[in-house]
């Protein structure tokens, strides 16, 4: 016998659902709201430019194209854009255990993803300009196969993301396997 395989009761196993979840960075909601505001501002500018172009282009032909209804888009888009972050962000969370990392997300479709450290191929940390403004980073964990997008954790504070990156890489390196 090279290894034994005794039966294990589920209660003896570490349970992924009974962990203490760590939330996203508190500035993350503000960052998303800023993004929403920026989107709305750029859409408003876009509408204004469109109106200007149409008015000058058709100025001679007595055609009056009203684009006023486009402004309706702004409040229609504004409601979800400004409300959604404060609903979805508190539902996101991650937990680090000794041998794996667990990430949960989703409001209607709640997903809990677990990645054992000894299956991680590489780790990537990135932050967009707006992220940097709020000191936020995205941590991306890659496993082999790459089917269906790898785990992406957006909304960690840059410091924690860096700590996690180092910690995970350390764990990945430590998990030596026989082949």
């Amino acid at each position, binding site marked *: 016998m090279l290894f034994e395989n005794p039966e294990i009761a*589920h209660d003896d196993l570490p349970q992924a659902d009974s962990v203490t979840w760590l939330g996203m960075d508190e500035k993350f909601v503000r960052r998303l709201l800023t993004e929403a505001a920026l989107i709305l501002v750029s859409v408003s500018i876009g509408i204004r430019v469109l109106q200007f172009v149409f008015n000058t282009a058709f100025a001679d032909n007595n055609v009056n194209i009203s684009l006023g209804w486009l402004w309706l888009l702004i409040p229609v888009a504004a409601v979800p854009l400004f409300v959604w972050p404060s609903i979805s962000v508190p539902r996101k969370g991650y937990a680090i255990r000794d041998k794996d990392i667990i990430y949960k997300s989703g409001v209607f479709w709640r997903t809990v*993803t677990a990645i054992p450290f000894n299956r991680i191929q590489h780790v990537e940390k990135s932050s967009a300009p707006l992220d940097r403004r709020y000191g936020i980073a995205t941590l991306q964990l890659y496993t082999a196969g790459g089917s269906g997008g790898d785990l992406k954790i957006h909304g960690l504070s840059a410091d924690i993301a860096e700590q996690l990156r180092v910690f995970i890489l350390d764990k990945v390196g430590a998990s030596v396997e026989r082949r």
Partner: protein
Amino acid sequence: MSVADQENWLHTSPLAAIFYLGKIYQNLAKNAVPALTPVFVLLLATEGNLVIRIGFGLAAFVLVTITVAFLQYWFFRYRIADNSVLIREGVLKKTQLDIKFDRIQAISTQQNVIFRAFGLVSVKLDTAGSAKQEGHLPAVKKSLADALKERIRQGYQTGSSTKKAADNADGEEHREVGARTLMKLNGRDMLRIGLSSNRAWIFLVFLGPVIEHFDQKYGEKIDKQVILSAVESSQGGVAGAFGLGLMILFGFLLFIVIASIIGAFLRYHRFELVTDNDVLRSTGGLLTRHEHSVNLAKIQTVVASQGFMLKRFERFRLRAKQASSGKSGGQKNLVVPLCEPDQLPILSHEIFGEEFADVILEPTSAAFLPIDKQYVRSRVMLTGILPATVITALMSIPLGLFAVVFLLWIPVNAYGVLRKYRRYGVLATPDGLALRRGFIGYRVTAFLHRKVQRISLTQTLPQRRKGLATLRFYLASGSVRVPYVDFKKASELRDYILYRIESSPLAWH
């Protein structure tokens, strides 16, 4: 024979040019229009006799392609070092590849008629990476290919305690047994493979509208003909044309089926599956012999599938999937095109060994547990009733009461959903998992728990109310989705598999 050679960069046989020529023509055929446009432009631009111009053009084309192929051969060098195969290639764009032996997922060789006469083979080294990272050794001596295979196999074994180590007591004896033939396919099987090939039946789908067209066109004419014949009592041309049309159609179908059978002979003639210690090797092919070797430890999932025709033949198709990145993965799999139901347990035991002894690939087995009935309700609601009522409501504006026909989608969809539900089945054992699913036929996917890369558990709103969840296992060869299972059982299974992954001392690759 020592394969390692430190200093010399080697040329392949000059016949490799044939290999490159084949590749060039293949590529040209794939994008024929853009590739041949300049040639046509050149042809039209020059003046003179058309025949001479075409002849000249053809000659130039052949000359250019041969030159390119020869240049590709000339600039290809390879070297076999201690731990890796090094390749330098490229005429204009130089590339250098360093393929480590232990990164090689599978090794496959091809031997066409010309190569066979000279004892040469083309070797393809599959790695888990993208298609660009794969090594080709076109036209090398067969002895070198064999030595390479042996070297790679040894690479697995030195530092290795793969699955076979589990039964280590007789492991050493095991290794000495050497190659054993697991199965062979004969000519009759080739017929079955050809007939059950998807390609043969895809054409039928394409032909569907054509048949309809024929029906309408000739249906009307026949109506007329009947009237005419009542007057003139002469049935001639048109009915004949209808018959001719049918004959052409039938001939076309026959042609497709025959082509498919010929394809099966070309690809799988004298198919043989051999197990050689830790390596599974398939050989087959009429003109070009294809050989594909996979190390057992590199296999991620095993898929036994049975389509419409295979079900009639009571046969299965087996695929051993390896790690792949994206689209190019399909070609790397080891495929057993046809096997009998009672060969399934033998083959799965050969692949999984003692580690997953209780794996079941036969879809009819009673061991598969059904998923929750809520699947039917949710699916009928989401893909049947909801879209049907929305479309009926929308179409009732232009169509009026006639829009009710769209409601017919509901029973059709419900039948499909029910069929799919019945085909779903899960078999979770202490060591691995098997999922059965299908619509027309069956497909059973089996994998070892320790090969899983990550697990996600999702609950939709209705699922949360009913205490259900959808589990998704991501493996290096793709993902396996187990829908609508009890939430508590799903989380238990998830926790257990995580435990198995994290406590396994064996590598997944």
